[in-house]
């Protein structure tokens, strides 16, 4: 087998809710072993979290997006049940149009299925693969599934050689219907909650996959599927590792159930923490499991953003997740058609400005006459660096938002809206663009502040979610 991880990226949203907040609301908390969990913001979903992890993995591996020839995205909850997520992510990441894209879904095991397929691709003619898993499970509010549900993403750049070699893999499946499922057209994942049956499905498949490995692993850290904070430890015996080894890579206690991103994110953390021998075993209902052994030599390049320090009350949690809001109002003015939206994707996703062939000044968006000299000239595309300075800013309160944003505002409250001077790579030139603030309190955006861009949900109209860049305070 010739597959190695050459870059690791990981991300979790900034919001956290504690088990105490659930206990206060419900009188009890149904997700054993979870002390707090990550909550996606109203403008986040599996696609935006995939983008957050993928950009970090590419940065860690110092890989030119153009060199990626194979992309996989895995999520048990892609934002659309039908429509290829990999195409949008590829465009956001500036991947080549000829890169292969594969979507893995339908199971919490899909993250490791994507990793498995990435290895196969490298065995064939792929040279550089990008595997991304992003998830935010969701259940009925009074169900343990929802109490455990967290959010996060992990991404790996895979090449034939590298500092973290995937040395072995095995899979196992056995029919166990009803442990965790979501029927077509349903939004909440559920399970029948047959405790011993569920545990048997979990441990049998994990044990079966690990038994399939050719060499018994001497793992220092084990990334085991974590639907809650207790179940992975029950599989310690089946996986042939101690509970300490599972704890070494655990993310469930602080981030919650990460679904298809559970094992990838634990693997990312183990590699970032410098463990040299890692066992990774997923489990997906149905049921099945994948097991991998990863042997690392020296530092594995990793860029992660897993800290979150914005606590939510349970009421804020319900709002942020859209459980107690009614959706956007109907209406139609200021309509931006999908074809016109599509034409702006190079700007929305990649900050593509244009350099005027007459005077050399930058225009954004690069269309019509030059903002500077007024010439009706051609524009040479210039990708901006995603950093800049706030020129003008306001905090939009209720009543000040366009109705397209009423639902988002109901969920996440007031937001900042700014005009920012975005910089070129060299930082020598800027061009102005309007952008919404995200990932921070609106009061954290002031004239003169440094910002960076990311990609988030802008709004959903006629059922189609439009994604584009937003700004957040600069990380450094």
């Amino acid at each position: 087998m010739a597959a190695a991880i050459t870059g690791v990226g990981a991300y979790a949203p900034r919001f956290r809710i504690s088990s105490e907040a659930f206990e206060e609301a419900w009188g009890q908390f149904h997700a054993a072993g979870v002390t707090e969990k990550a909550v996606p913001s109203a403008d986040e979903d599996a696609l935006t979290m995939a983008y957050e992890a993928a950009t970090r993995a590419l940065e860690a591996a110092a890989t030119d997006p153009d060199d990626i020839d194979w992309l996989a995205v895995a999520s048990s909850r892609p934002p659309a049940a039908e429509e290829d997520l990999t195409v949008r992510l590829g465009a956001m990441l500036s991947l080549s149009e000829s890169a292969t894209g594969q979507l893995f879904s339908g199971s919490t095991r899909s993250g490791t299925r994507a990793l498995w397929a990435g290895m196969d691709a490298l065995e064939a003619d792929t040279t550089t693969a990008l595997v991304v898993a992003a998830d935010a499970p969701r259940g009925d509010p009074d169900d343990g599934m929802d109490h455990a549900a967290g959010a996060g993403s992990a991404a790996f750049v895979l090449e034939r050689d590298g500092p973290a070699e995937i040395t072995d893999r095995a899979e196992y499946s056995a029919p166990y219907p009803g442990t965790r499922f979501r029927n077509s057209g349903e939004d909440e994942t559920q399970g029948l909650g047959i405790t011993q049956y569920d545990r048997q499905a979990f441990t049998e498949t994990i044990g079966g996959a690990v038994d399939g490995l050719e060499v018994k692993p001497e793992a220092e850290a084990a990334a085991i599927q974590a639907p809650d904070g207790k179940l992975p430890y029950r599989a310690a015996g089946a996986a042939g590792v101690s509970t300490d080894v599972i704890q070494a890579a655990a993310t469930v206690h602080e981030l919650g159930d990460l679904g298809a991103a559970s094992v990838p994110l634990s693997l990312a953390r183990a590699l970032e923490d410098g463990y040299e021998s890692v066992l990774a075993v997923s489990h997906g209902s149905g049921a099945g499991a994948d097991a991998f052994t990863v042997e690392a030599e020296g530092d594995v390049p990793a860029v992660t953003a897993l800290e979150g320090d914005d606590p939510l009350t349970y009421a804020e949690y319900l709002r942020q997740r859209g459980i107690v809001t009614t959706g956007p109002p109907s209406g139609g003015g200021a309509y931006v058609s999908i074809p016109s939206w599509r034409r702006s994707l190079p700007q929305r996703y990649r900050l593509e400005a244009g350099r005027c062939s007459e005077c050399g000044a930058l225009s954004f968006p690069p269309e019509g006459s030059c903002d500077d000299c007024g010439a009706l000239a051609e524009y040479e595309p210039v990708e901006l660096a995603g950093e800049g300075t706030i020129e003008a800013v306001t905090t939009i309160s209720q009543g000040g938002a366009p109705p397209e944003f009423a639902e988002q505002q109901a969920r996440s409250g007031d937001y900042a809206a700014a005009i920012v001077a975005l910089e070129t790579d060299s930082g020598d030139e800027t061009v102005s663009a309007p952008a919404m603030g995200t990932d921070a309190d609106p009061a954290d955006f002031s004239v003169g502040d440094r910002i960076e861009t990311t990609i988030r949900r802008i709004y959903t109209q006629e059922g189609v979610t439009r994604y584009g860049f937003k700004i957040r305070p600069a990380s450094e």
Partner: protein
Amino acid sequence: MEYDWPAGSRSGRTFVIIDRHKAYSYFTPDDRRTSMRDAYLVGAGQSDYGAFPSESYRSLFRTAFDAATDSVPKELEADDVDEAFVGNLGVGGRQLGLSGPAVTEHVGLDGVPCTRVENACAASGFAVRQAVQAVKSGMADVVLAGGFEIMSDMSSDATKYWLGVSGETEWERLSGTTFSGVYAQMASVHMEQYGTTREQLSRVAVKNHSNGAKNPHAQLGFECSLEDAQSAPVVADPLNLYHCCPTSDGAACALIVSEDVVDEYTDDPIRVAGVGAGSDTVGLFQRDTYTGVPASQRAAESAYEMADVEPDELDFAEVHDCFAIAELLAYEDLGFCEKGEAGQLIESGATELSGELPVNTSGGLKSKGHPIGATGAGQVVEAYKQLSGAAGERQVENPTRGLTHNVGGSGGASVIHIFEKEREVSA
């Protein structure tokens, strides 16, 4: 790049001096006056502004038309009207075509050429400009310039959907702003650069409500204290509810005639002395400045030059105060003070009714109301009332010359008119 006003100082206040000898691209001011006919304002009237569930856009327009014709000192019949220009953005958001003829036909102007003018909030300011052009060109002798809007007959969400249509919709609006947000962004920079304060912004509301309380047509015709104005709920920081104009139903009409027929309608003519207009990018982010409205600066330059007057020769002004910051920006763009000093100007009281240059004696958009398509013509109604001594409790003492300033969107279009009483000026 800021527009560079040539500035001078007199009587303790600083005013812009326009260079009278500067060559105009086509005509010198004198050439313009001799080469084209003069246009005169002989009547203007409006409906009440407010929310009127029992009125239609046509019935409101009729009220304004009747008030305008009634205000003409001698008689003006519907049959006299040669042409009509009507400003309108959207009839309650309904995308009606031919909404211009729909209202002129309703008031008996059957057959009269009618053009609907759409320049967002500056629609009827531009309708007035079209009327002046029609008269000056010789194509018409009597022209109706009006505007109307119905904004209150739909849900507030639906209203917001169509209000945003006058902004830059693909980038600016999708960063989460409507006009309150865009003007708030301008305010943020003005505050940062020039030290303008929230209190100064609130003083605009206090002043305009004080004037509007004296205007029977005003939608929000009540006084408000500085404390009330400062403690209102935030809409788009730093702008609170009292920094924002209301949405309104209403209509307004003005009657513009040529020098050849003016004597048939009045013995006390009010001349359209200056006209200026400008346009700009629809989105704020594509402009070189966020602390001024270049389209207004351009419009002011042309209007002052054509009228051959300076800002300190004005006796009153109706400026486009859709948001409090917009009035302060207008002070600077129109040369009432130096760049950055608008906050001090409002604080000095100079723009109050009793001040040196009363601004928005009608109550402005803030108190009188802002029925988008009617607003520009409604400003001309106030100018007519002031210059004909019919402004009641808010009458400026014996005014000779007044200015109206009407802005579309956040400054994508701007139009300015200067009106002056003929007899005093020609003396």
